[in-house]
């Protein structure tokens, strides 16, 4: 007698031991999503709605913001949460639209690498930022550089 596999049978049986990473990924998407709404809506309000909005953004604007640890941590938290949220979401699409194999591994590797590189780059930029670089024209710098 032949048995017909259930149409919804998973490609691999669910892992019974150890950490259930898919469950934690599912929880992460929801938890980070709620926090990201606050962080990104705040980011958009500060950068696009207040004052002259996008027209006011320049080196001096960024320098003024990152002079305060509050906005440094705001942006770094946003960077980490958003990139991991986005890369994990893209992983879902790769799982949906590709079959297990080399192509799928390459795509997931590219997602992981781009997220890791940009998280490290962004974190370094925020915390090693020099608002008053020597030799730069004073009119491009935040106003506090003159003091």
């Amino acid at each position, binding site marked *: 007698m032949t048995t017909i596999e259930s149409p919804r049978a998973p490609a691999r049986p669910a892992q019974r031991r150890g950490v259930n990473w898919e469950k934690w990924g599912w929880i992460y998407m929801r938890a980070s999503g709620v926090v990201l709404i606050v962080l990104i809506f705040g980011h958009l309000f500060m950068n696009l*709605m207040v004052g002259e909005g996008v*027209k006011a*953004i320049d080196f001096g604007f960024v320098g003024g913001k990152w002079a305060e640890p509050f906005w440094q941590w705001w942006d770094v938290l946003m960077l980490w949460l958003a990139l991991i949220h986005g890369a994990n*979401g893209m992983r879902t699409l790769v799982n949906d639209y590709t079959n297990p194999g080399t192509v799928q591994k390459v795509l997931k590797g590219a997602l992981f690498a781009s997220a890791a590189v*940009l998280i490290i780059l962004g974190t370094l930029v925020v915390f090693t930022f020099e608002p008053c670089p020597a030799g730069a024209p004073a009119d491009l710098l935040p106003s506090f550089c003159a003091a």
Partner: protein
Amino acid sequence: MPDTSAGTLTAPAKPARQKPGGTLYRGREGMWSWVLHRITGVAIFFFLLVHILDTALVRVSPEAYNAVIGTYQTPIMGLGEVALVGAIVFHAFNGLRIILVDFWAWATRHQKVLFYVVVGLWVVTMIAFVPRHLMNVFSH
């Protein structure tokens, strides 16, 4: 049952239009919210990659950063920012809808109504954002 035409040997003629009532997912609010969530998510992801790189230019020089951020202030990019904010706002509100549908039985039963709530909140938010943003982009 005899086939009525030659071309339907493997795929029999379509049965009379079926209406599976409230269980139909495809083509309804649930599907469109899912489709829009994917499309906006992918768009936001690729913008995020670019946005981190352009912001990283503050570490190169004030001139380099200002040159690139200046392109964000052109009329075409200003319209692109309307699309970007529209995508983010939809993804945000629909994400909250997904969480409610996951954790709250009432919301699971009323996911269609909640889709229209998302659309309504999106419209309100965009009305608050778009005129002010376009005035900033197209004046000065």
